[in-house]
């Protein structure tokens, strides 16, 4: 009797403190913060690798690295940025914001939520530790193409295991997010009234659930080819190396949208707030997001135009890829129409959102160029592709993450961030990023392949420019770190609404949002 009462006390009041609080927490806000901190640490780790790559490429000849270590750097930079920085950052936003935006007290499966997060540091540790193993880290490219991937040492098996663990984490996270959104919305909050960020994450969650098992299958086949004598990807045993590419990109292309749909969601929250005008074409935004997600399953082989497919396949994948430009265009037009005749102000979240719209569109245009199969034959595996996906992932996904952090940080911490530091961070990032990646278009057109540690002399000037941009961009991220730490420690008190034009359930809560919110569901309309 007294034991039972005591246990009940423990449950409602006695939170473990110190490290145990974070290890055992099931609170969506704690877990959201941990995801975001993890992503930031990974961003800086993989960013350091990128700076090493750019330093080596500052001039022709081998200076700082050797070709094998260079390949390790490019491979790990890709893997960690995608699976360690961008995806966990969006999971962090989902954890913090989905319950607050739909009026739910927490996620649907709080314990699984804890487990989904804590798998990630384990996987990251395994990846990072592989640098110390004999032979070094994986050097076969983040796309893990066999037979090259079959040749590597022990770190290749460790990487496969790490990818499995990260995939498991993503699937658990997605099931949690989808269940929360479908079952725990406040009374009156119908699907077509949900904030767009919630919509994009719902669709992303389904993409993850559909494609992560495909990746798991592909890497498992690699594992058995490497260790157990199977021949899935070995022609001598009746397999086909190109089959891996088909399976990988069947995961890989939806993955691209997994990395960008939540970004669309964040930007769709921010632009109406600072335009003080409702989002233009809400319904068409939802339909466009869904169409992009569905089409993303039909375009995978545009990553493989150079493998030598039959004409019919080449044409099919070219047309389906071009088709994706239509719903993507609708989104861009809607954002511009949202700004049109608004009452615009330019706080840091809005600056990042506007830069997102412009620069993501440049990435979209280069995507359209790459969709044209004959042109893609020239540009496949060159720096043009490197420029393209960095415009989409840096000025796209990463800028939206920055925008989202600036937008919601006052709600999370109760303090306003320093607008001066924020603007410095924005301008240095946007200038550095363009100096870094824009010249890569020209390098690719002129014929510089990607993933090479050394290059012919005619590529020197643009490479030097890119390296200068890389260091500006890289070091300006320290401003962001300082800004976040300062905002957590103190700063002007944030109001509950924070932004004049902000709409939505999260802004009805006090700032900072209390540890437990919406224990009684709010009623919408």
């Amino acid at each position: 009797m007294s034991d039972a009462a005591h246990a009940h006390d423990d449950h409602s009041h006695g939170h473990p403190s110190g490290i145990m609080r974070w290890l055992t927490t099931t609170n969506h806000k704690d877990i959201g913060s941990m995801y975001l901190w993890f992503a930031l640490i990974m961003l800086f780790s993989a960013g350091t690798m990128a700076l090493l790559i750019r330093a080596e490429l500052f001039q022709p000849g081998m200076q700082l690295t050797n070709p094998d270590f260079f390949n390790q750097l490019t491979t790990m930079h890709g893997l960690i940025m995608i699976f360690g920085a961008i995806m966990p950052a969006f999971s962090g936003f989902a954890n913090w914001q989905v319950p607050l935006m739909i009026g739910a007290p927490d996620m649907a499966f709080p314990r699984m939520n804890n487990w989904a997060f804590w798998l990630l540091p384990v996987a990251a540790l395994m990846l990072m530790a592989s640098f110390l193993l004999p032979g070094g880290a994986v050097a076969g490219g983040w796309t893990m193409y066999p037979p090259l991937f079959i040749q590597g040492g022990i770190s290749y098996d460790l990487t496969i295991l790490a990818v499995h663990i990260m995939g498991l984490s993503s699937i658990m996270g997605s099931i949690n997010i989808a269940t929360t959104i479908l079952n725990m919305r406040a009374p009156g909050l119908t699907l077509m009234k949900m904030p767009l960020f919630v919509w994009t994450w719902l669709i992303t969650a389904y993409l993850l659930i559909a494609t992560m098992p495909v990746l798991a299958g592909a890497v498992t086949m690699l594992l058995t080819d490497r260790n157990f004598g199977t021949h899935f990807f070995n022609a001598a045993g009746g397999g086909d190396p190109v089959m891996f590419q088909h399976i990988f990109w069947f995961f890989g292309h939806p993955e691209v949208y997994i990395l960008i749909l939540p970004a669309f969601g964040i930007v769709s929250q921010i632009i109406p707030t600072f335009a003080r005008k409702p989002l233009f074409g809400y319904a068409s935004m939802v339909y466009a997001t869904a169409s992009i997600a569905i089409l993303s399953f039909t375009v995978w082989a545009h990553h493989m135009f150079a493998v030598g497919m039959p004409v019919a396949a080449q044409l099919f994948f070219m047309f389906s890829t071009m088709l994706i430009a239509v719903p993507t265009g609708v989104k861009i037009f809607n954002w511009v129409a949202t700004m049109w005749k608004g009452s615009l102000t330019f706080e840091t979240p809005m600056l990042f959102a506007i830069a997102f719209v412009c620069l993501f569109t440049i990435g979209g245009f280069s995507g359209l160029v790459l969709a044209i199969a004959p042109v893609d034959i020239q540009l496949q595996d060159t720096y043009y592709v490197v420029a393209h996906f960095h415009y989409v992932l840096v000025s796209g996904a990463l800028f939206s993450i920055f925008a989202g952090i600036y937008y919601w940080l006052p709600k999370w911490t109760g303090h306003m961030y320093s607008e001066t530091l924020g603007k410095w961070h924005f301008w240095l990032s946007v200038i550095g990023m363009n100096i870094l990646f824009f010249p890569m278009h020209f390098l690719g057109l002129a014929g510089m392949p990607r993933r090479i540690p050394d290059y012919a002399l005619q590529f020197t000037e643009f490479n030097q420019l890119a390296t200068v941009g890389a260091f500006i961009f890289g070091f300006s991220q320290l401003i962001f770190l300082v800004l976040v730490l300062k905002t957590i420690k103190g700063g002007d008190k944030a109001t509950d609404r924070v932004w004049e034009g902000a709409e939505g359930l999260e802004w009805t809560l006090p700032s900072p949002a209390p540890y437990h919110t919406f224990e009684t569901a709010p009623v919408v309309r």
Partner: protein
Amino acid sequence: MKSKWQRVGMMGAALAFSQSTLADYAYNLQTPASQVAQDVFDLHNLIMLVCLGIFVVVFGAMFYSLLKHRKSLGHKAANFHENTTVEIIWTVIPFVILVGMAYPAARVVIDMKDTTNPDMTVKITGFQWKWSYDYLNDDISFYSNLSTPREQIVGTAEKGEHYLLEVDEPIVVPVGKRVRLLITANDVIHSWWVPALSVKQDAIPGFIRDSWFKADRIGTYRGQCAELCGKDHGFMPIVVEVVSEEDYKAWVEKKKGAATSAAADNTRTFDAAELIARGETVYQANCAACHQADGKGLPGVFPAISGAKIASGPIDAHIDVILNGRPGTAMAAFAGQLSDADIAAVVTYQRNAWDNKTGDLAQPAKIAAARGGAAGEAAAPAAQ
């Protein structure tokens, strides 16, 4: 934002130039040397123009709004948020533009894929890290290695004009002939790419894919491997020499003569100095990329030969590894790549260089005997 606009302006200016000046400009694709490359070049310019037009219209509107519809100018927000007509218009217009793009693109795809009626056929094989060319009509075979000296790469010598884009033996083809390429690989996936000819075809081990080109100008066209293939992916360039019909015939005769004298080497007996000198050359071209010039390898990745059991133990095991490789590792089988004389020389060199002082000599006849045994059917190539 300004920096971006400047560059966008630059791109626009580049597009406005006439084609001939544009072609030499480092802001666009390389000067086309074939009709297909020209078609791709034009296709790229067309799509860039379309993108630029859309960019100007959409972001013109956005920047107008950013300048005029500011709160600081006292602009009050309107409240519209839906308009079905507008939505339909900006779904249909992009669709129509894309259909307009799809038609010319599809024509080029079909043309690029049509490998019928070739005048000659060359089989191309990718290796870690070199290419080999087999002229199926003329019975000529050779390997093509990077010829940039190591000193230029590590920075102890000044870099030459064609740094990293030069080879010891280029592929030579006659101008104006349809050349069909059969492309495959020996170990991992490579990709044979020559930008000026607009050919990029992955070389896939165990499969043969085809492509074609018809160069319409005499000249030297340079490219590189375009698919990550391991450590020296950046160091396996491609050089295509397009020559006149007469020059091509002369080259074919010369190659055939060289092959006959190389075949004679396989039946000769060499002395130690000859074998070691020849072996060092073979070693630098075929082995040093992994096992390093000093024979020490790269710990954990590529094993050492200097002081290793393989080079001091039984000579037959040593020859066997070189002939047949080690399946499942990066160690390739050289039976099909090197002649008996070359293998004899490199074995002798490895057993007498660095810390290895066996004093063993291997003669071409011994390699021929070993092929008959373990290697079985693997036929000896006449020359490297």
